[in-house]
């Protein structure tokens, strides 16, 4: 009887998911029709005027750091919150997860590729407004350095190279610097986090120092994301 009951429960759940799939099919049919027969004025405006208004050739960066920069501030606060919560939740400093050390081939390879990863991360952050990349992607690439050190050597060695206080300090610099760069817009008589609107000098589109405050905001976000993800990974891997 209990086996029959179990089978009925499983069938019930499968039926639930299939009903949900039908509902999603109807919904997506409407979304698809909406996309084809209506003109999108906002994205047309971004595509036709975005380079002149912000000076950044990467339109995703101009949406993220100029038109919707306040959204990005909340998004960056999310990483700060997650790192803080993890640092509080898992406060044990002793780690015995990786007992057996790797062979020297792995250690030497990691030593060899770490400078290249650093150069790639710095390139992605600094050229984020004119080519694919940006603060978030470059920050993730930079945080891979700390993660690789943790995985191949140990948590102790990784925290000897990058001290936890230093990482928290870098993350705070990123968070406070982002807000201060946003306040510059208010001091010049415009809105919070406005960039192209406040005439910070859009420059020639396609150069490194163009698009006003955008390279600096990218740098702040890169510092913040790299330190935050390193803190998150090291907190998760620590165990009694």
């Amino acid at each position, binding site marked *: 009887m209990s086996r029959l009951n179990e089978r009925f429960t499983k069938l019930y759940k*499968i039926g639930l998911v299939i009903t949900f799939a039908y509902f999603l099919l109807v919904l997506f049919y409407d979304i698809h029709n909406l*996309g084809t027969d209506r003109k999108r004025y906002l*994205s047309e405006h971004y*595509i036709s005027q975005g380079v002149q208004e912000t000076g950044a050739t*990467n339109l*995703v960066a101009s949406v993220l750091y100029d038109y919707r920069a306040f959204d990005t501030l909340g998004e960056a606060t*999310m*990483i700060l919150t997650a790192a803080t919560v993890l640092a509080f*939740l898992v406060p044990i400093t002793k780690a015995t997860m990786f007992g057996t050390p790797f062979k020297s081939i792995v250690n030497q390879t990691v030593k060899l590729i770490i400078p290249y990863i650093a150069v790639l991360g710095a390139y992605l952050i600094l050229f984020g407004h004119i080519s694919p990349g940006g603060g*978030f992607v470059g920050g993730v690439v930079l945080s891979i350095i700390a993660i690789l050190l943790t995985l191949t050597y140990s948590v102790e060695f990784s925290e000897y190279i990058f001290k936890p206080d230093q990482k928290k300090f870098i993350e705070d610099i990123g968070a406070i610097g982002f807000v201060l760069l946003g306040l510059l817009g208010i001091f010049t008589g415009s809105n919070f986090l406005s960039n192209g609107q406040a005439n910070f000098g859009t420059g020639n589109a396609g150069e490194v120092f163009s698009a006003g405050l955008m390279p600096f905001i990218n740098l702040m976000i890169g510092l913040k994301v790299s330190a935050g993800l390193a803190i998150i990974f090291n907190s998760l891997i620590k165990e009694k």
Partner: protein
Amino acid sequence: MEIAYVAVIILFCLGMYTIITKKNLIKIVIGITIVESSLILLLMLVGYKPGGTAPILDKRYEIVVDPITQALALTTIVIGGSVTAVMLAMVIKLHKRYRTLNIDEIRKLRG
């Protein structure tokens, strides 16, 4: 184009099925990330135009895909990563306290 929407639906329902039926907490977290990645794929599909290039205007391009949905997808990825990290930390704390990951055996969970 239409087949990709079907792929989104299949991924979403696979994730929901994983969340509903599995008992292991790690598998539930995996289901939530599957649902999230299907939504990222949906955002990409909504902004797609046939024959469009990526929205980086270093030359003159005829058709450019929608940059707003790509920015929203970046937001989704970042927030999803943070939330996954917090969920995994909660799972570690629960395992440390109850010595199991089966949600049927974690009884005294309150508030």
